[in-house]
């Protein structure tokens, strides 16, 4: 009796300590104060703004066309940032030393002016800050560049480093408890042995020898081992099954080694130019060779090359032989799911990269997202409706704002309903 109550006290003490530790950590988190808000909704609206306006030239952790933006709010004061984002040329012409240096450093590339309000600038900075704090994304094939918006865990402001620290601390505490308990038991046993007025059964308990074989044979132990084993097997099987048919990373060899990096990246040809259906139709359309010929009727070799390209020759051959090009489909949705590009691109204002990843950097196109239903649903839960200036949504926005302060996301207007995609 005594033993157990003693143990309980110790354990609760340990937990109290642990709790204090965690609370301290979270306090520490919020203490890094500035004028930049850390509100979830602000960050998410900042993310949308960032993706729609800044992403073309800026990344948070790496230099693209413009400088990397991590800790930009530390480097420059807020008013300067606001002014520069709204009209960078004005700041540069005003002779601001930092601005002029920056301008020269980046080959005098002008940053266009943006008609943002101060709040909007703040929200972008909030997003940049939250990204900065997350640290550079681990190089993963699936979620690399396009996926940030989607793959981010909602509500998890605690860094994964802290979680590990907490876990280690917890482990240490548990081991300590175990040691203390061990010591306590041996002390108590000794104490009891000294008093020899025990009856037989008590004697037996006290004399018990710790035996590994006995422990291994005990039903409790067998049960635990079986349970753990089954759990691991099940988890592996389920994980395995969940990846059946998921083709993330699928990058088949195409009949023509067409480089999106060259066309969309280096030459900055707009996606719509070739994928003509993307704003009007369900299908984005793989361009027919007559679209290729708009440019390639005059271009038959790669820049710098002296001989005409074999790959480009394939387009000519296709037209000459009246034989269509048989591309390998990279993004495959099952027939039971209905997906419409124009709904997402034209109405929703979603960037191509959100689902297709940084195609403009791909030599060979690969499927960069999982394209599973969970992935779709996740996005529908988070993506705000592009309702600005669309009369269709006016009444819905009004109704939504009556009941909620959060932005209206796809889920709020039935975006998770079965018959939106399955019929």
């Amino acid at each position: 009796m005594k033993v157990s109550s003693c143990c309980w006290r110790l354990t609760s003490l340990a937990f109290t300590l642990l709790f204090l530790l965690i609370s301290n950590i979270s306090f520490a988190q919020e203490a890094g104060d500035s004028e930049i808000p850390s509100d979830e909704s602000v960050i998410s609206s900042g993310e949308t703004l960032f993706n729609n306006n800044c992403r073309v030239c800026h990344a948070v952790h790496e230099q693209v066309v413009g400088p990397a933006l991590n800790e930009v709010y530390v480097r420059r004061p807020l008013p300067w940032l606001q002014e520069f984002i709204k009209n960078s040329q004005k700041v540069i012409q005003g002779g601001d030393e930092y601005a002029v240096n920056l301008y020269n450093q980046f080959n005098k590339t002008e940053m266009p002016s943006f008609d943002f309000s101060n709040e909007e600038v703040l929200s972008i900075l909030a997003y940049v800050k939250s990204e900065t704090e997350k640290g550079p994304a681990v190089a993963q094939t699936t979620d690399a560049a396009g996926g940030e918006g989607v793959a981010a865990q909602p509500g998890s402001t605690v860094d994964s480093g802290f979680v590990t620290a907490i876990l280690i601390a917890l482990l240490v505490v548990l081991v300590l408890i175990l040691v203390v308990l061990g010591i306590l038991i041996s002390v108590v046993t000794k104490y009891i042995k000294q008093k020899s007025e025990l009856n037989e059964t008590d004697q037996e308990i006290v004399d018990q020898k710790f035996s590994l074989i006995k422990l291994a044979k005990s039903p409790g132990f067998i049960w635990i081992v079986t349970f753990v084993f089954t759990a691991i097997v099940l988890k592996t099987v389920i994980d395995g099954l969940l990846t059946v048919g998921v083709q993330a990373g699928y990058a088949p060899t195409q009949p023509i080694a067409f480089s999106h990096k060259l066309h969309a990246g280096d030459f900055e040809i707009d996606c719509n130019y070739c994928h003509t259906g993307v704003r009007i139709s369900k299908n984005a359309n793989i361009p027919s060779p007559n679209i290729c010929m708009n440019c390639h009727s005059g271009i038959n070799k790669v820049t710098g090359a002296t001989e005409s390209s074999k790959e480009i020759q394939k387009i000519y051959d296709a037209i000459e032989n009246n034989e269509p090009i048989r591309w390998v489909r990279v993004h495959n949705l099952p027939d039971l799911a209905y997906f419409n590009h124009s709904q997402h691109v034209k109405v929703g204002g979603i960037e191509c990269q959100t689902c297709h990843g940084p195609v403009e950097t791909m030599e060979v196109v690969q499927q960069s997202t999982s394209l599973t239903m969970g992935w779709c649903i996740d996005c529908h839960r988070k993506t705000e409706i592009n309702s600005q200036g669309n009369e269709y949504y006016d009444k819905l926005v009004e109704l939504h704002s009556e009941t909620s302060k959060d932005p209206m996301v796809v889920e709020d207007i039935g975006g998770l309903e079965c018959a939106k995609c399955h019929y």
Partner: protein
Amino acid sequence: MEKNKKLYWKGIEQLNKEPEFEKFLNKEFPEYLPINGGKEENSGSSRRDFLKLMGFSVAAASLAACEAPVRKAIPYLNKPVEVNPGIPNYYASTYVNGGDYCSVVVKTREGRPIKVDGNKLSKVSGGGTLPQVQASVLSLYDQERLPAPSIGGEKSTWEEIDNQIKTKLASISAKGGKIAIVSKTILSPTTLKVIEEFKENYPETDLVIYDPISSSGMLKANQLTFGQRLLPNYSFDKADVIVSFSADFLGTWINPVKFSSDFTKTRKLDDKKKTMSRLYAFESNLSLTGANADYRVAVRASKEGLLVSNLYNELLKKAGLTTIRTSSVEELPAIQKAANDLWKAKGKSLVVSGSNDENVQLIVNKINDLLGNYGKTLDITAPAKFRQGNEGEMDSFISQLSAGRVNGVIFLGCNPVYDHPKGAEIKAGLEKAELSVSTSDRKDETAALTGYIAPDHHYLESWNDAEPVAGSYSLTQPVISPLFNTRQAGESLLKWTGNDQTYYDYLMAIWRSGLYANQSDVLDFQTFWDKTLHDGVYTPPMGESTDETDVTSESTVDIQTAINNISKNYKAENSENELVLYEKIAVGDGTHANNPWLQEMPDPISKACWDNYLTVSQSWAEANGVKMVEAKSKLGVLTIDGQEIKVPILVQPGQAEGTFGLAVGYGRTSAGKVGNGIGINAYPFIQKNNNYYSLARFEGIQVVATDEIYEIAQTQTHHTFMGRAVIQEANLSEYQKDPAAGRESIHIATSEALARELGLEKGEVPPGALTLWKGHEYPNHHWAMAIDLNSCTGCGSCTIACQAENNVPVVGKQEVINRREMHWIRIDRYYSSDAPKDDRLGLEVPSSNPEVTFMPMLCQQCNNAPCETVCPVAATTHSTEGLNQMTYNRCIGTRYCANNCPYKVRRFNWFKYHDNKQFDTNLPMNNDLGKMVLNPDVTVRSRGVMEKCTFCVQRIQAGKLEAKKEGRRPTDDDINTACASACPTGGIVFGDLKDPNSEVAKLLKFKEEEKFQKVEEPRAYNVLEEINVKPNIWYFTKIRNKDEKLA
């Protein structure tokens, strides 16, 4: 409010409470029905089987996981500007099958036509469609079509066949031999021009036109009366009183699609218009027209002439003119009543007869003249050309052919060996012709006997024009390039004439020199042509129409001779059996027999499909011991002219005593896999009566029932409503007094205290007042439907339109017998009986001439849906737009939902109907060609999955997207279901209740106040309101226009 005392029943077995019927009455899925096609007796599977299956599926799953199939994406080589994958294109065109006409709009996806709908711009077909038109798109993808021209049954080339035919024609022409071009009615003026040109080249050529269901006698009568061998243009919308003598103008007679829409215009009721027309029908078989009539009199066909002359006599009396001598009939009171009504509605009435007897039609013309209907409800200044067949010419052709005096014969897309009463003679005679050519699209009964087959395009691959009514033109344009090596029949004729122009150029040239030259509105031909092509129809500017001549006055008709002939040929009393042939609305004259959609469409009246059968009256059935239980009937032996034919018997309430009905269009032997060997061919039974081919035979008929059991694929008793009243109806006089007449206000039993709590009297508590349901909020859209039982004629266009739109499989005869038909929308046909509900004895005697109500039944999209609550995997859920969603990929096939559905509208995929040889009649899903008709926006469901009407959610989504893209709210024009857009009468109205401007909201007078929704239209009701499932479909009470006393 007075309670509707009528009892409704769906089949005689239900009315008679047959024990075998009652046993399975409550079962949605009776266990006794076989799963393995009835072949395997012991269908239980063993543990071993289970393990084998398990092992296999695990292996299959792991194999599947290893390598995902490589799918190709093949873009156009040179993308046409107007074709965008994923976006449908619509083209106006014209459906023509002989004299059947419909101006249509064809929906194509990626260059494939997938759906046909009515063209709203057409004044001749009125924007609706009938089942055959809806199904015509499937005929395009028929594998049985000839892939190339053939000579003597061997595949050949066009050069070869042209050379041989031209040589033969020349040699026949050189020796002055006779050539005949045989065709059904030709509506195309350009084709007629081509034939003219052909005739110029080969002067000994005759054009012989026949109609499988001949109207020759009617045309002759009109010629005698008006001097023109044409049909008047009927305006049913202007008629207050209509009397039809076996003219099924709502189903198969002349131009039913337009007649249905016009007729229904006079039947619609609202606050402003509280009057409607009255329809009398005198007929032997229960037809669609009879089923929609206010007064239907079942009469023997042998009386028809006398009925007409009696009506004429009665009207003469009223006009104060000298009456004629005619024998009286026992139906005189009904005739007098009709005469009274007609006389009151002079100039606003219409008398029509389906008879092919010149004498009868002469009197009908006289009657309409007497009533002053010409120039009002009948127009002869712009006559219709739907029927042009000339029996005299056809008969003389056949006798010349038999005599070997016809050297060359060209069958222009017709099949007289099958569908002409003298088909056998033609068959024998064909051997004597030197040259025989058919332009049929398949090796049909006639083409199989001809030396050459020059297969014609399907109409969706053709260029053509049509002039169905004088002064109303329309164009047929191809919507797909020819699937096979076929050639337009007109072009073939041109080739054989020696004119190498394409038919397209020829057509354009005719239009340029004709219609274009005669107008001055458009100054360049291309614009004129493009506009006409876009609209599909063209009406020349007014002014050139012929002067309105009062042809009737100058007619030199000898009416007394006609009356005498009638008295001679018709009988007031006939003790012999009579056979009355008829056309079914789906299969029609049999041209489309290989179309499984049409074969599987239940006949609106008999609810039977995949067969023709002898319809017998109930009294005959009783006397001969024939009982129909669960679609099991007896085989009968029909004896005609000593010939004995076995034919199934179907007991048909409303069948006139002593008459038997039999549909033509069946018994094809060379239609194709689907149509061959179904039923018997009734065309040879047509014989001359009064010098014209008559559908009725008054004598020499014997019918004997055998003991052999025969199962008719009948959908009638499959979906019972457990005797609950679902039809609410009233008489017009009651409606005029109280618009809510006929409505049954259903109340639930409560305690007095509870009722008081609700602020109501005890016994006045409506079903919705107490509910366990929380209800749904619809912030965005609220889709709903209003179905007017007064507008529904039961034609079944909606069923086929839905089948085409939603990839609904065809299951075949045996599966229909097993109650597994898949149609998402069915037309329930209820007969009623005048006996009160508690009068069991009275119910023992079924009504011999019951009233009929049609009720389209589809998923009611319940707000408190019983199916949703029982699905264990949430595969059927409710949307925020009021839809009851069905997610196929989630469904595991427990069938709980179907069991719990009070409307029995859920359909279970008992089998894999696609890519399955067992279901090879399911053409749209079992071969690559047929699959081209599938709607790419709708999933093809697999085995073990439940399915049902979705309110065409793919169309809703597409319409919403279109509106979103343009930044506006969708309107009625953006979204409509397939059934509603196919309905020729506008009986189905679909829309968004949240949109106060939508037609459905206006019709229902929908009010929405703070979570409180109310339908204020007094006629609107929900079916099975008492179970409080709150459907999103409202029905409008059926109103009949009967006299007050009789109601």
